[in-house]
């Protein structure tokens, strides 16, 4: 299994999902070898063996560099644009380029490469190198593995490389697509290409929701019978509910997540303004950071509600728990959300949630209130209802809690196991 991150050092939901999934797979009798670019050594390895790509030198294959490159050189990204050349020159250029690559390879890949494992500016380069190293690792473990499982575009190249080198079937897992990261006309085409390449090369594509499955089919042109939906679950073990003393007597409505276009923060603000017009004793909190944050602050100031609308900035670890414990209603107004784990966390803490119909988790949650992200009236209505009618709040809180506790990774993993079985011939 190729991943990019694993708890405790995570930047997004991907690492958490991988952790839960590997535990679930272990419970289903599947042994997982987890490759990640930069492991710190403090990962929980009870259910999984972690291979740190930063520790693996690639010199074992140096004898067959040519063969290796022949199979995986397509992963080189950032190839130079070549102006008009005649066919003769082109051939020489390709030859030269190839020789240079072999040399580079010996220099760069003949040793360990220290991955940052972050999402920095040289992400593309790391992705390419990770593919090289990942493929090598797969080759080293050729006899142990039956299926290659790659999570999100960062690791697709590694998956493809591994498949090419080992001949084992490839499953790619789509946690998010380019279309969830930006609006349609502004997607990163380099990422889109990698995603498409990965999905095309895969024997099966697992999507985290039907919503995502549809995107995979419609926007990436993948054959529907290759794409399977396996909804995420959530692992709450080792989590205790905090008892936090409240500083404010007012009810608190919370938005928690990256403050970016995709998460729909502005709809939350509009809804807040509407609710505040009706019932003054409510506070709204926007927790998180992102490129829309400053715009949101100005928006709130313009609406004249900033004494009731608070910004906390980015919250870590315990602070997130504390925020949930302080909340009366959780709102996730995402414009496009492949799955969305945060409302599950909120509901687990007995916080009733309002989620957008455009989120994957809406497919599995019965006791969350669902509205269209653009329907600010409906959103404020739902918030107002949960704040003012104790009956519905109590119901959503109690049943919601039970509902998310029933979403077990063991069940999701058994579906994944079935996918594995279908590709192993």
């Amino acid at each position, binding site marked *: 299994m190729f991943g990019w991150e694993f708890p405790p050092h995570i930047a997004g939901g991907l690492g958490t999902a991988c952790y839960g999934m590997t535990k679930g797979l272990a419970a289903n009798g599947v042994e997982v070898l987890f490759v990640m670019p930069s492991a710190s050594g403090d990962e929980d390895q009870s259910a999984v063996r972690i291979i740190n790509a930063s520790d693996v030198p690639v010199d074992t294959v140096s004898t067959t560099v040519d063969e290796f490159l022949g199979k995986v050189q397509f992963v080189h990204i950032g190839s130079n644009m070549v102006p008009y050349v005649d066919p003769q020159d082109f051939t020489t250029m390709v030859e030269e380029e190839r020789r240079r690559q072999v040399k580079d390879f010996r220099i760069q890949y003949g040793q360990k490469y220290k991955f940052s494992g972050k999402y920095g500016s040289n992400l593309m380069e790391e992705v390419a190198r990770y593919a090289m190293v990942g493929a090598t690792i797969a080759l080293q473990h050729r006899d142990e593995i039956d299926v290659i499982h790659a999570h999100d575009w960062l690791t697709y190249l590694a998956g493809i490389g591994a498949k090419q080198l080992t001949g084992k079937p490839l499953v790619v897992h789509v946690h998010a697509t380019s279309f969830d990261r930006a609006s349609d006309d502004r997607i990163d085409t380099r990422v889109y290409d990698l995603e498409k390449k990965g999905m095309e090369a895969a024997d099966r594509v697992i999507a985290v929701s039907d919503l995502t499955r549809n995107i995979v089919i419609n926007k990436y042109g993948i054959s529907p019978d290759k794409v399977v939906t396996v909804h995420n679950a959530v692992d709450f073990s080792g989590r205790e509910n905090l008892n936090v*003393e*409240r*500083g*404010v*007597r007012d009810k608190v409505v919370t938005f928690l997540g990256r403050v970016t276009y995709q998460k729909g923060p502005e709809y939350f603000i509009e809804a807040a303004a509407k609710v505040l017009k009706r019932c003054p004793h409510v*506070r709204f*909190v926007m927790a998180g950071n992102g490129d829309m*944050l*400053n715009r949101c*602050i*100005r928006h*709130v*100031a*313009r609406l*004249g509600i*900033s*004494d*009731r609308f*608070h*910004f*906390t*900035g980015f919250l870590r670890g315990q*602070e997130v728990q*504390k925020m949930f414990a*302080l909340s009366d209603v959780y709102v996730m107004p995402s414009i496009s959300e492949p799955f969305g784990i945060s409302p599950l966390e909120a509901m687990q803490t007995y916080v009733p949630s309002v989620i957008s119909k455009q989120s994957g988790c809406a497919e599995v949650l019965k006791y969350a209130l669902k509205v269209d992200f653009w329907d600010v009236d409906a959103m404020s209505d739902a918030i107002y209802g949960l704040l003012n009618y104790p009956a519905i709040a109590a119901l959503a809180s109690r049943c919601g809690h039970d509902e998310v506790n029933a979403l077990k990774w063991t069940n999701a993993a058994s579906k994944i196991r079935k996918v594995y079985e279908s590709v192993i011939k």
Partner: protein
Amino acid sequence: MKKSLCLYFQVHQPNRLRLYRFFDIGKDSHYYDDFANRTILRRVAQKCYLPMNELLLELIKKYDGKFKVAFSISGSVLEQFERYAPEVTDSFRRLAKTGNVEFLSETYYHSLASLASPAEFKHQVLKHKAAIEHYFGVVPTTFRNTELIYSDAIGEMVYDLGFRTMLTEGAKHVLGWKSPNYVYSGALAPKLNLLLKNSSLSDDIAFRFSDRNWSDWPLTGDKYLGWVKKAAENDEIVNLFMDYETFGEHQSAQSGIFDFMRYLPEVVLKDGEFEFVTPSEATRKHKPVAVLDVPDAISWADEERDVTAWLGNELQNEAFNKLYSLSEKLALVNNEDLWADYGHLQESDHFYYMCTKFFSDGAVHKYFNPYDTPYEAFINYMNVLSDFILRVDDANSVSDANFAAPKKETAARKTGRPAAKTVKKSAPKSAGKVAEKAAKPAAAKTVKKAVPKTSSKAAVKTTKKAK
């Protein structure tokens, strides 16, 4: 008659807010970054206040009363002196004793109250007057509003408070072809004399003095006097107004600023064309030459010389409106702590930190700003204000309860607030719930009335400008 040279220095330090999180709201009501405030005050005291006061004292003695200056010292900084550097107060007191130093009146909290609420404005001016009298034994007779903010309407309020002289900026967009080097009179208060800052000559000292890229660097006393004489060739008075922190803090001691100031009086007095005057002497000596029309507020800040440094964007307007919408509720509570916090939250600096005019005057703004971005400044301020609003509401419900119970008279506020007093008076000692209910809206109304159209006008105008 000799021409006049009038030196005036502004002394002020804000109470900077600590990092105040959403999680603190309702739990912790200490708002100030005591460490930063203490450190900065002690540093400025060592670098500027103490040595410069010493120098001024020496000069006043040396020229036997021929050298004079004026100060405005905000209540906020007086409190900080008291807390962190009482020796600075003593040093100002020594200056006061010479009789050659005029202390000007201003709003106690260095606030923008003049743009928001005449009642609050008056309260703070009186509070400041009492403080100056307490510390320095003099009653200020000349007024200087926060950052030289002035408009016709403010001039009228100041006149009604009994002042006959006021300082403001010689803003080009207001003066047009007129010279700042005369005394003018207010448009709505014809008997109010206005002294206008000569911006170019003041900024030569305050901003350019140590700039080595400046073609006129280094500045010497003789050169400077030449400029002053040229500027006032046919005029009467040159007003040099600046931050006191110019000396030793903004312009470091190494730049030679102290030597410059040591030498300047000698050059000026030897030359004999000019004499030093204090603002109140200046308006006794010179008669106003014309009326100055200032319908929109001006100040000494930024290129625009208006109030957009504090009320120029939606963040500032929102914070400002939320803050001043509380004055009505506060008029009903009798709680020294709340009053003090309300005052400190009004310090104009908090709004200055939220300014987004980064490009033209960014350097100056950045220098004075403890926050990385105006957004952080806004969030922090609003978090503090949210907690403060909670406390005000609590206090209000408590005071409601007190009215209902047999009322025990609490000690009247020293710096009495008219609105608060009316409540007390109109509520008879045996007041029951009914009387209280009757009294409360009435009191609220008087406060409302006291907030005239000007404030909302000013607010609307600034929002317009922001757009």
